[in-house]
């Protein structure tokens, strides 16, 4: 008798809790995903730190890397971060057109970043400094390439959300999705800080 009583007492409480924080749990879950992504990058950074000086008599970072180009690339990603921030501010105001505009600007900066990175990669491959050349270059292409792949998927996601927002407006679902992409986009900028510090600046330093 007491068992059936507790069961009925528990059920409504369970539903209430489910109803109460639907968006918060999405944010926390997405944050946990970002943390697991952070671990992927940590392992790639560790690999680079271990084998990053094994050149196999090939080119070293000081021979290959063009720091002004990296600085330009960093600026592109930083600009895209602040313009995404502007998009979020417009979203909170409920201004659909302005949100779409700033999302578009973010996408353009993201594409500029990718374009510069692909130019750099093709330049390296052209010089014979491909991922198969040395352990250093394998680790470099894996680490920077994984980051670039994340930015690529971020841009695909961004375009998808722009279509969603222009079709359905700034409904709660789209606000939640924009919030998740905001965290993803800023997270990629955080990873890039590690990349330009550890790979490019420390590499050129020797």
């Amino acid at each position, binding site marked *: 008798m007491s068992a059936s009583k507790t069961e009925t007492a528990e059920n409504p409480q369970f539903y209430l809790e489910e109803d109460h924080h639907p*968006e*918060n749990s999405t*944010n*926390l879950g997405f*944050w*946990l995903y970002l*943390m697991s992504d*952070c*671990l992927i990058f*940590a*392992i790639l*950074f*560790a*690999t680079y*730190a*271990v084998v990053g000086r094994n050149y196999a008599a090939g080119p070293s970072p000081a021979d290959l890397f063009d*720091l*002004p180009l990296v*600085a330009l690339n*960093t*600026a592109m990603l*930083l600009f895209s*971060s*602040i313009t995404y*921030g*502007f998009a*979020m*501010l417009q979203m*909170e105001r409920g201004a659909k057109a302005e949100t779409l505009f700033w999302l578009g600007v973010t996408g353009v900066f993201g594409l500029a970043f990718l374009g510069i990175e692909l130019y750099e990669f093709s330049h390296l491959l052209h010089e014979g400094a491909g991922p198969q050349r040395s352990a250093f270059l394998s680790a470099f292409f894996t680490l920077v390439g994984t980051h670039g792949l994340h930015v690529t998927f971020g841009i695909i996601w961004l375009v998808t959300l722009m279509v969603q927002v222009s079709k359905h407006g700034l409904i*709660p679902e789209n*606000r939640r999705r924009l*919030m998740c992409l905001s*965290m993803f986009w*800023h*997270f990629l*900028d*955080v990873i890039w*800080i*590690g990349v*330009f*510090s*550890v790979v490019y*600046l*420390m590499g*050129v*330093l*020797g």
Partner: protein
Amino acid sequence: MTDKAPAHEDAHAAHHAHSHGHEASHGSLKSYTTGFILSVILTAIPFWLVMGDVFDNKAVTGALVMIFGVIQIVVHMIYFLHMNTKSEGGWTAMALIFTIVIVVIALSGSLWVMHHLNANMMVMSPEMMKNMP
């Protein structure tokens, strides 16, 4: 006067709860601009240190680059990702601390083990060396 103060506080609390109900956290124009300006400065200094050959000692430059990198990551966490100890009841901060612990163990552990790899290997005789695969 005495009536007004609690009412104001109530309204403030209500607004606070409201804003947290919709999004876990969001910034203002001021916080985004502050974060952006700090990031530009914190990016420009390490690039200038390396590209301008400011210090002769490479160890000093390297240490400064890493310190500025860490500071900039903290700036991004606060101003762009709006990290604080209260959002989601402290669970995001908890997850972040856990991840940092794992990252530090993975990075320092890998470097430490691999750096001492030669010292930790069994001593090889020339005979063994010859028969190595």
